């Protein structure tokens, strides 16, 4: 009679032992202790959040929670900031591990302690793991945005409030058509455009909205290019007033180099044409996965919203997208020629340049008000300014397939590129990650593009030493100096430790135990039929049981042979004694 949870922590495999018992005609009556579910526990496995966050902006915590209580489990996740409750969220968890997000808006600068807490349940094996704490540095930082606009078109009316609604944006507007003594809009007012390279570097993102190329100098364009090259963001919105052809004609080299699309410099906007035919725009396959086009966390809702946006009447003509640029949005059409890019992006050294050939995004205020419109602009600005705001780190994610490994196990290193434009920039570049052991030994891991075509680089590392390992991936910008700041520099920690095999899996192996019982023709009991356990006594015969079995015994290994051997040895010894040979 075997009382066990069926989990094997050593010895010969259960199946082999069962086969042996079956051969010996020993019925094994399996009584399972436990159930297919692990021991009751609700725990916070991991909190993923930025180590540094902006004051007044949303600070998001992604929490990995393992529910071993029941499914579904309705519970509450509470977030405390320095001991004060700042958010509470009702969540419903299925059994196993789930990811939950909770957020807050930090109101004070400095190092803050954030505690995430789950309620304690009866009979939990461990209640200490219902809480977890992280420290986040709250800093006052802003995205300094400069909007240069030619004329106050309708988009301008809606664009300015949309940008100002973002709490991290410090907006300076420069309306080229304005009066000389005009007080320009924005929460960071300016009286003139930047004139020196340092002044341009004071901005993280610059938006050129259908600008009059004659009201900006070539030197200013060159300085702006330098700002982008150094990690800034640039958005060029084409409009009907001046068009990009005119801009290229006046500032050919820099603008043409920076744009992610090719523009015919001889094709001026057609002023006399009446645009009364509507066309739809669609996200390209790469555009679908891009953070800029993500208007909803749920991809199904996101896809629906994109189809609900009204059709447009005008977009700027484009020859083609540049080879390493990523087209996010294109004009809907049957042939490739009809599918003109209307929004594209590419990495420019350490910065990024975004092109929009549409000047009537205000149409997207239908059908849900300004919600999606504002969100789109927030996405654009955050994306373009991310390098300055948080470094390109946010555009790659370095992880391992698990957090904890045993010695000798294989660690799968994953570098996920979240930005298609960055992926295009990294094309053909050798990528490595380094693993640093607690003894400060460094081992390099080669990362190769994933064969599935995902935006993923994969490598493997064999865990040899125990302790906390630091995984790091650092990459210089292609064409950039090796001394220059890296394109990204990300870290991830994992542990290699001796693990308790008992605690590894606390669920019972019902199927294994059932198979053992069936294999040996024994009875099987688990919590489902435990009330019938008294039948087990009847199944065990009270009389001594004679088991017949055929065994193969080597003669030399039998008792008669042993006796014969002893007799012969004894006789030999007696004779030798008798003959005086000893």
């Amino acid at each position: 009679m075997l009382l066990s949870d069926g989990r094997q922590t050593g010895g010969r495999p259960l199946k082999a032992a069962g086969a042996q018992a079956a051969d010996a005609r020993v019925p094994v009556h399996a009584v399972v202790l436990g159930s297919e579910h692990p021991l009751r526990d609700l725990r916070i496995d991991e909190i993923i959040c930025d180590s540094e966050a902006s004051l007044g902006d949303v600070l998001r915590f992604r929490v990995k929670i393992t529910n071993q209580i029941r499914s579904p489990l309705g519970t509450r996740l509470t977030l405390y900031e320095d001991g004060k409750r700042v958010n509470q969220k009702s969540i419903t968890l299925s059994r196993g591990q789930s990811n939950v997000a909770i957020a807050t808006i930090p109101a004070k600068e400095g190092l803050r302690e954030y505690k995430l807490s789950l309620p304690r349940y009866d009979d939990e094996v461990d209640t200490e793991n219902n809480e977890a704490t992280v420290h986040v540095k709250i800093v006052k930082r802003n995205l300094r945005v400069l909007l240069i606009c030619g004329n106050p078109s309708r988009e301008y009316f809606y664009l300015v409030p949309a940008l100002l609604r973002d709490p991290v944006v410090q907006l300076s507007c420069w309306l080229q058509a304005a009066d000389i003594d005009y007080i320009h809009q924005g929460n960071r007012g300016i009286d003139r455009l930047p004139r020196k390279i340092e002044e341009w570097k004071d901005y993280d993102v610059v938006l050129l909205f259908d600008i009059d190329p004659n009201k900006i100098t070539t030197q200013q364009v060159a300085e702006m290019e330098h700002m982008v090259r150094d990690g800034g963001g640039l958005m060029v919105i084409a409009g009907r007033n001046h068009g990009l052809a005119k801009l290229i004609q006046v500032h050919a080299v820099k603008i043409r180099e920076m744009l992610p699309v090719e523009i015919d410099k001889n094709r001026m906007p057609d002023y006399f044409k009446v645009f009364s035919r509507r066309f739809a725009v669609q996200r390209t396959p790469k555009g679908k996965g891009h953070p800029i086009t993500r208007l909803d966390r749920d991809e199904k809702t996101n896809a629906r919203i994109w189809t609900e946006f009204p059709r447009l009447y005008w977009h700027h003509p484009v020859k083609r997208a540049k080879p390493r640029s990523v087209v996010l949005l294109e004009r809907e059409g049957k042939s490739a020629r009809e599918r003109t890019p209307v929004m594209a992006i590419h990495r420019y050294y350490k910065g990024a340049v975004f092109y929009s050939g549409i000047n009537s995004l205000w149409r997207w205020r239908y059908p849900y008000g300004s919600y999606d419109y504002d969100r789109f602009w927030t996405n654009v600005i955050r994306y373009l300014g991310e390098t300055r705001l948080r470094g390109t780190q946010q555009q790659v994610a370095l992880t391992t397939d698990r957090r904890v490994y045993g010695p000798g196990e294989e660690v799968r290193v994953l570098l996920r590129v979240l930005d298609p434009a960055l992926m295009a920039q990294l094309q053909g570049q050798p990528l490595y990650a380094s693993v640093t052991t607690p003894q400060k030994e460094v081992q390099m891991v080669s990362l190769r593009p994933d064969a599935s075509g995902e935006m993923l680089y994969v490598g493997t590392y064999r865990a040899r030493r125990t302790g906390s390992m630091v995984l790091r991936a650092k990459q210089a910008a292609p064409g950039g100096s090796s001394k220059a700041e890296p394109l990204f520099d990300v870290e991830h920690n994992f542990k290699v430790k001796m693990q308790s095999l008992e605690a590894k899996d606390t669920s019972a192996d019902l199927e294994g135990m059932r198979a053992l019982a069936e294999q040996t023709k024994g009875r099987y009991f688990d919590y489902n039929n435990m009330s019938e356990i008294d039948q087990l006594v009847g199944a065990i015969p009270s009389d001594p049981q004679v088991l017949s079995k055929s065994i193969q015994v080597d003669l030399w290994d039998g008792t008669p042979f042993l006796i014969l051997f002893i007799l012969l040895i004894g006789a030999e010894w007696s004779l030798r004694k008798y003959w005086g040979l000893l």
Partner: protein
Amino acid sequence: MVFAQVLGAAVNRKLTALLAVLILLTAGGAGLVSSGERGRKRPRKSGKKAGKGAKKEPRKEPEKEPKKDKTDEERKLLAEMERRKGATFPGRDPAFLVLPRPGERSQMVKELLTPEVKKMTREALEYLARTQDTDGGWSDTQFQSNTGVTALCCMAFMAEGSRPRIGKYGKHVNSGIEFLLKNVKKGSGVIAGKGSYQYGPMYEHALSTQALLLAWGDMPWKGDDIRKALTGAVEALKKSQRQDGGWRYLVSNQGNSDMSVTANVLWVLRTAKKCGFTVRQASIDKGTNYIRKCALPDGTFRYRYWGLHASPSLGGTGVIALMNQGRIDHKLIPPARDRIAYDYRRYTIKDLKTRRYFVYGAFYASLATYSCGDKYWLPWHKKCAAVFKSMQREDGEFYDQDDNLVYPTAMAAIILQAPLGYLPIYER
């Protein structure tokens, strides 16, 4: 020695065999250490049939997958933070008001733009498109070839999403704007045609300036013409502010003002500021002060500040004029807003449609209630649409007490299309 070795081997083999049997009998025991879960409730249902001995197992209930949380918590947090903060004017000029962001996707459009409202709008726009004069302008019963009426018609098409030479009514807007430009008087900068109001062209001028400001950024082929016209037009507005701080029909700074024209001009000057024209804050403050003097504690406004009777159609103009100071929480706004809400709730469709200047009053009330949020805007728009439904004639037109047909139709079309959010005069 040999004997001892053989004996040892034989005994070892025996012991090994005996040990193997023991291990077998403990059923791989070394590895099978039991550790179970206690105190678990017995599920009502069970899985597959167990081993030979088990007769019947209770059926196990499959565990349900919890629903995914689809709410965007981050957006809601930001919206809540902004709601607490209220409307702000982040720049140096209070004209640029930024209202809190919506916490979630608004269903307002779907709720208000019913098939019936869409049909009414379509018919109204078609009526306007049909009645456009050959010179690009529009005429009304009282106002022949009038710039004010033309400006309103252009704005009605702009509210649909059309721009000059772009969109379904792109041609109509374009020729309408061209008409306005043709009627700019040299020297004074006043935009008023031959069919202007007999007592003075300020309404026409203000509305024309508003339409030109909204079209300016989308008419590149006009070059500097439109900029020059607008500079003159805005200057005319600024110069004609009277001593009491307001404006009236005549484009002159002499005489007394009235609340209706003053509110209109303030509204236009605010748009002018957004478009890059310099308007002194002192001038706006003086104008707003005039509005404040016209206000009564019950939320109504008098036509002139020394007048006795309040005019119900002036509520909306009062609210939008007061917002010029960058304060949506101006102490006079809540009573005025509540008064509009009360009026539209209290009075029947018949009462409202027979009111003098109903469509005019509704136009300004729509601008005011839209800014005050869905709580006020939704019931107001529904009631207004119901009144319009009873007013619309067979050809799609609306009317006023003087049987003017075009300007009321244009104003009604603007109101009906306001939920689209395509006309920047509707601010949130």
